[in-house]
């Protein structure tokens, strides 16, 4: 069977709207919940969590620090104080457990912006646009570390749209909205999924953690796949699906092992045959399809 409508039409027809959008709704919930936890302090005076995604303090005890930022600081020649190191280790442990790029899909505020751009792009039938290499982000990641090393300052933070948006929302935006708009327009008109999927070094850094992370998506019912291609259409990193989904008979694990899978769960939602589900890295079991 080949899908006729927009991606997701089959899933909605087969499962109903909510089951076909469950993880998406949860994900937006998570993004907004984390953001509002940060905003509760400045807006309502309720200080659950202070700071921003770069470094924060929850309930006055739990420090969390962005390990990528700390790495740049180290490259710049500063040995951070204990609190920041502890915070970075806590964050590292969390993402090693749930998947590095869970940061991208469940936490990062820019994801809402680029998802909106991708959604609108699909609605407006804009073609794929400029083709960037997906490994560009690793080059940029290396570049940010090199710049820190050479300049002795955290140069990337001068233009990082991720921290700029998050800090802007909490501490005041200034002209940062222009950069956010730029990312939106870039993704909408210049390159499909250009920022998060090709350029962002923050995502690139977290993907490195994904190489070892425990929680993964598995195509455990892949024999039920009817090749409707909806999962490829909605996946922000569609190249990660193939090995797991198309590995039938090649003795390849159904677990999506690519570190660039963001564990967003869109494929789980969109599949009318329920091929995908959340699973563990070493769980190679497959479900029999009746």
């Amino acid at each position, binding site marked *: 069977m080949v899908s006729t409508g927009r991606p997701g039409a089959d899933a909605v027809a087969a499962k109903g709207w909510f089951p076909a959008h469950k993880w998406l709704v949860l994900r937006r919930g998570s993004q907004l919940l984390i953001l509002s936890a940060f905003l509760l302090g400045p807006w309502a005076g309720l200080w659950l969590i202070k*700071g*921003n995604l*770069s470094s924060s303090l929850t309930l006055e005890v739990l420090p969390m620090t962005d390990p990528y930022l700390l790495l740049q600081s180290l490259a710049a020649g500063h040995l951070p104080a204990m609190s920041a190191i502890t915070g970075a280790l806590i964050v590292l442990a969390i993402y090693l457990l749930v998947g590095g790029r869970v940061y991208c899909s469940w936490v990062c505020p820019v994801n809402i912006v680029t998802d909106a751009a991708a959604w609108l792009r699909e609605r407006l039938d804009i073609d794929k646009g400029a083709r960037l290499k997906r490994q560009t982000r690793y080059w940029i990641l290396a570049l940010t570390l090199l710049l820190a090393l050479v300049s002795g300052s955290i140069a990337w933070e001068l233009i990082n749209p991720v921290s700029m948006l998050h800090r802007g929302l909490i501490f005041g935006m200034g002209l940062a909205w222009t950069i956010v708009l730029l990312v939106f327009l870039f993704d909408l008109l210049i390159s499909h999924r250009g920022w998060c999927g090709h350029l962002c070094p923050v995502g690139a850094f977290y993907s490195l953690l994904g190489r070892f992370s425990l929680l993964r998506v598995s195509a455990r019912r892949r024999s039920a796949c009817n090749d409707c291609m909806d999962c490829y259409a909605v996946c922000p990193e569609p190249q990660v699906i193939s090995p797991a989904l198309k590995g039938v008979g090649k003795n390849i694990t159904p677990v999506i092992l690519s570190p660039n899978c963001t564990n967003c769960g869109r494929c789980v939602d969109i599949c009318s045959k329920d091929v995908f589900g959340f699973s563990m890295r070493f769980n190679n079991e497959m479900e029999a399809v009746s």
Partner: protein
Amino acid sequence: MPMTDTGQSRPRAGETAPGLPARRRFLKETARLACGVAIVGIGLGLYAESARSLPPQAIRPPGALPEPEFLGACVRCGLCARDCPFDTLDLARLGDGVALGTPYFIARRVPCEMCEDIPCVVACPTGALDKRLTDIDDARMGLAVLIDQESCLNYLGLRCDVCYRVCPVIDEAITLDPQHNPRTGSHTRFIPVVHSEHCTGCGKCEKSCVLEEAAIKVLPARLAKGRLGRHYRLGWEEKRKAGESLVPPDAEHRYTLPEGTRYEHGGRGLITEDERRETPFPDNPLETLNGRKEKR
């Protein structure tokens, strides 16, 4: 595929060996990628260089590392700003002209109130605000400078004294030095004088200066302070330290004088042994000088 110069597999001009197009494409794409990233890198690097210059009115929180190190240490989390009870600190926004996201304050807007427990330093997770700063009086955020002597009310001879009164380190960081008022000829001006040894750069003086534009301003120490040559020694200091002058006492000066005269240093001056000899000048040279003045 490695090429050898013996086999028939060597490609002629215009042909390509199997595997070469892929390799060529790989090299081309890699070069393109490297170029693109290098352009971004150079742009960002240059921007980072220009972002180093902190505007002089932007003051870092107490304990901030020297600016170049600070920019490598601060992660822009804003925890210092959150724990400041007076909302003194701002995180730089895009367009503020301060390195994006880093904390600073403008003294004329909100000065540092110099909390004894220094909560901003305690809150800093990275040590960009140095934890070794435990006494706020040791903070050196900048240095107050009475920058406009032409409009300072105390310089004009009035008793404003506000900067002196509000100074948290009163009588040490700012003192009032009495000076003669040359305009009236009969009054005293009380000149506010800042002493870098004690000034923390909190900016309370600048904030409270009653003028429309403050006459006293906090500047970064690099702009406000001069520095003596390292080999300079202040003679009076050295003398005090040694307990005596380090220069040997003057040898008695010998004048070359006409025969029959001598000179008494600190005494009668020029003495003519032979009193009969007449000179056109009086004994005291001042008489000649004063005499000329009277004629005029």
